[in-house]
């Protein structure tokens, strides 16, 4: 079915007329050292077909053995998603022929997932265009199951890089057998026109959660987290579910939102024109923001699932599961709420910290003794600016939270002014040592000797008798010129507030 014949309906019109229902399937590559069913290594970016062994190549006679670490990660993910962990479950074989699948079946969980019936609360931010409030959406999780990844085909020749028109294809089996967890939602209903934002917020929340569990790199651009978007429309929330499309490999947060918007418009166009939506797999094109038809599923792909006879049933020890539950990290959203309350930040302030990737850094800086406000200012201000200029992540900045706390401590003690502290930071970033060492080496400390300051103030008054006269006449703001002269004399290493006090005192006295 060509999408060019029937135009997409503009988004607002589409969601005014139809109720969108989504289903999201997220594949996460676990960051285990070895593969799901063998000891082959899992290094990303290695030369093709070097991260393989008889099992991951599916050689005759080879047999799978479940990676215990992968099972542990799967259970922890299930627990973090508030799922029930199966007391007993099995793997199945999903049979179909494809050159990048060494055995021509995928070993996957089918009707007996390791984790099921969970939920994840998703904080959906206010719409960027101001048309919608922030709200929390509870995503119901149907299941999280274990499976193995396939290899990767690349099609050489032809213009599209796709299999059609290619002269030949190459297959790299390095990815074959990498442990995957597939997390499947129940149909997400009731989101209405916020559906694209809900989808994006869900994937973002899931990504943060998985990162906090330290089970995956969750790098969408490298494919270690991949999202398939199922979408259907129905005339009203009471109507039965419509026919869905499945858009594969939507691999950025922004694309998740865009793909949902696009498919809503496309489905609405078809339905309005009285056409049927084809149940099919669709490809997402990052460059054009369009989806195109993939394989149609109408020939009822029959995967001939049956229990994997080469693996024994999995029956996790309940005590072990409870131990894993007890040692789960605090969920990122709950942690953000707790820290916001502890630090007394506004929503906006917290969002700045989170968006800057500075939450851990601010927390560590506060733990090292700085006030939350000063920690936030450092990390989202000067340090962020410098990291940005260097083109590096905040976390990769060479300054540590301890050093930032120390720097702030020097400011609080009056040893450094804010400006001097920024200079000291420069020294720290340049590798000149701790803040105290930089202050020492560069001679940056504030001149707090009042006799030296008083002498400089007196000299400034003497040099500017007209200004002193104005001040005495009540024009206190004229003091700025004298303060500036003093600060210049002191090469900035003086506390401007103290200088001001002294100026007013000495003018009155003279």
């Amino acid at each position, binding site marked *: 079915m060509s999408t060019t014949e029937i135009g997409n309906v503009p988004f607002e019109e589409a969601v005014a007329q139809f109720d969108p229902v989504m289903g999201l399937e997220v594949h996460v590559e676990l960051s285990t050292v070895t593969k799901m069913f063998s000891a082959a290594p899992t290094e990303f970016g290695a030369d093709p077909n070097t991260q393989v062994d008889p099992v991951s190549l599916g050689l005759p*006679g080879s047999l799978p053995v479940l990676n215990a670490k992968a099972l542990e990660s799967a259970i922890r993910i299930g627990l973090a998603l508030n799922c029930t962990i199966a007391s007993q479950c099995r793997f199945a074989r999903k049979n179909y022929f494809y050159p990048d699948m060494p055995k021509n079946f995928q070993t996957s969980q089918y009707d007996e997932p390791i984790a099921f019936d969970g939920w994840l609360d998703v904080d959906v931010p206010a719409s960027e265009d101001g048309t919608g409030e922030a709200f929390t959406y509870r995503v119901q999780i149907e299941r999280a199951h274990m499976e193995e990844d396939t290899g990767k085909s690349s099609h050489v020749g032809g213009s599209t890089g796709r299999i059609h028109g290619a002269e030949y294809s190459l297959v790299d089996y390095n990815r074959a057998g990498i442990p995957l967890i597939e997390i499947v939602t129940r149909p997400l209903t009731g989101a209405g026109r916020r559906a694209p934002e809900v989808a994006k917020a869900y994937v973002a929340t899931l990504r943060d959660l998985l990162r906090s569990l330290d089970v995956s790199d969750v790098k969408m651009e490298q494919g270690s987290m991949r999202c398939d978007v199922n979408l259907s429309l129905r005339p009203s929330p009471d109507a039965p579910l419509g026919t869905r499309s499945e858009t594969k490999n939507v691999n950025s947060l922004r694309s998740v939102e865009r793909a949902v918007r696009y498919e809503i418009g496309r489905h609405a166009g078809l339905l309005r024109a009285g056409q049927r939506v084809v149940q099919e797999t669709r490809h997402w094109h990052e460059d054009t923001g369009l989806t195109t038809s993939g394989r149609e599923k109408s020939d009822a792909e029959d995967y001939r699932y049956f229990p994997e006879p080469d693996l024994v049933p999995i029956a996790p020890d309940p005590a072990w599961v409870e131990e894993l539950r007890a040692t789960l990290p605090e969920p990122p959203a709950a942690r953000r709420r707790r820290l916001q309350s502890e630090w007394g930040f506004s929503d906006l302030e917290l969002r700045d910290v989170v968006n800057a990737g500075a939450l851990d850094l601010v927390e560590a800086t506060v733990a090292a003794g700085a006030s939350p406000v000063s920690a936030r200012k450092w990390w989202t201000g000067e340090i962020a600016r410098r990291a940005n200029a260097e083109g590096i992540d905040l976390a990769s900045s060479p300054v540590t939270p301890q050093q930032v706390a120390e720097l702030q401590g020097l400011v609080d003690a009056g040893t450094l002014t804010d400006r001097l502290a920024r200079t000291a930071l420069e020294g720290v970033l340049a590798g000149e040592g701790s803040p105290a060492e930089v202050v020492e080496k560069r001679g940056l400390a504030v001149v707090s000797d009042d006799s030296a300051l008083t002498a400089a103030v007196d000299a400034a008054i003497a040099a500017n008798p007209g200004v002193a006269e104005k001040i005495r006449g009540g024009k206190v703001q004229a003091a700025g010129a004298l303060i500036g002269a003093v600060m210049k004399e002191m090469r900035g290493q003086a506390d401007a507030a103290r200088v001001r006090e002294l100026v007013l005192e000495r003018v009155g006295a003279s």
Partner: protein
Amino acid sequence: MSAADLTRWDASRLAAALQAGEVSSVDATRAHLDRIAQVDGDADAGVHAFLHVAGEQALADAAEVDARRGRGEELGPLAGVPVGVKDVLTTTGMPTTCGSRILEGWVSPYDATVVRQLKAAGMVIVGKTNMDEFAMGSTTERSAFGPTRNPWDHTRIPGGSGGGSAAALAAFEVPLTVGSDTGGSIRQPAAVTGTVGVKPTYGGVSRYGLVAMASSLDQAGPCGRTVLDTALLHEVMAGHDPHDSTSLPGPAPQVVAAAREGASGDLRGVRVGVVRELGGEGYQAGVRARFDEAVALLTEAGADVVEVGCPNFAHALPAYYLIMPSEASSNLARYDGMRYGLRVVPDGDGVTAEQVMAATRAAGFGEEVKRRVILGTYALSAGYYDAYYGSAQKVRTLVQRDFDAAFGQVDVLVSPTAPTTAYRLGEKLDDPLAMYAGDVATIPANLAGVPGMSLPVGLADEDGLPVGLQILAPAREDQRLYRVGAALEALLLQRWGAPLLARVPEQPATAATASSTTEARA
């Protein structure tokens, strides 16, 4: 000492002579290689038990064992003894074809765990034995490289799928072989060639490197000319393997000790059940006669013999012929010409990977493999799964319950191994159902995962061909097979005065004048 003598020796006698320094492994290996060169022939004539003979490697391995022994190293009881390996187990340095064109010439980059165990035990692998393609068959006629012939009568089948492993023993080409048994492929060939074969408890021997037909049924096992020899090989192969998830943890059964204990011929206190459903109608008269005599001998040896009913065994055959092809259809999907083995590219432009897969499988698989792949694909299809695969699994549970109930009453069960003696080559090739029916007595053990042995109990009067008796024991009680089997063997030997295999006709020397270092055969 003449070379012919060494090939007539049992493995245990040869092992003792090797340990005593009376013979060298090189001499023993060369004697067997010469025997293979004399009698094994090729697809057209001779026993054709071997698809590949690794003469040079075997002699080098034998020399290495001799050298180690010369240095006084501690070696296993079978060190230096030649052994043949069914071509369904992966071996580095020699091809693994599974009797199929689709794997012709494929050399595995890794050794099966069993092969590693043989090598670690210092055994000398002389070559790979013939088999029905992917172990699918009861006659070895389904080998893509030509049939194996029964040493008792070259016009007859050697059984299958492991006809090569059994015939090699009966023709004195090698004293021990490794087989695999999915529905009887060790036991039925043993029965029709007058040799001993054991399917261990499922999980008792590693399946890593055993090319899968039906994963939940496949089990590698030992084949020999005597119960004790078979036990010696069993202990080399048995034990937990971390590379096989279905491998049993814990210590392996003490089968050699059981075989030695049984050799006294005393079975007092042992309860033996004769399976009512496996015998009688449909069983050849000569098979029944020899079986009944053997049961009488068990009674004479002091065993308490009773008849035991296993009513669900009647459904075992159809259940097996759903489960086995279902698993096989999936296990054999990997042979698609993409990575290894045969690749057939159809003529024309714009050929797709799918077309290459289809053409490769069409050309590379034989008729019986295609039949089972199609059958299994159908049985697993949506809408049929519950009726076929699902029901078959329920039957499997019922068969297991029959065994549980039976073993509540008796220590071992006995039956004829096969309903008939060796039939003629070609006789059932066009009647798969008739051929499948020959597995009726061996299949229940695979469905339930219990161990089984076949051992020779004489020759049928009507055709003078060997008859096998099957012993079955509860899971992880493999040693019971050896105790009862060794006792029966000892009593029969007393009666016969010489082993049954002494009566195998002398094999005709083949036209093939291959030397002992012949590498490629097929």
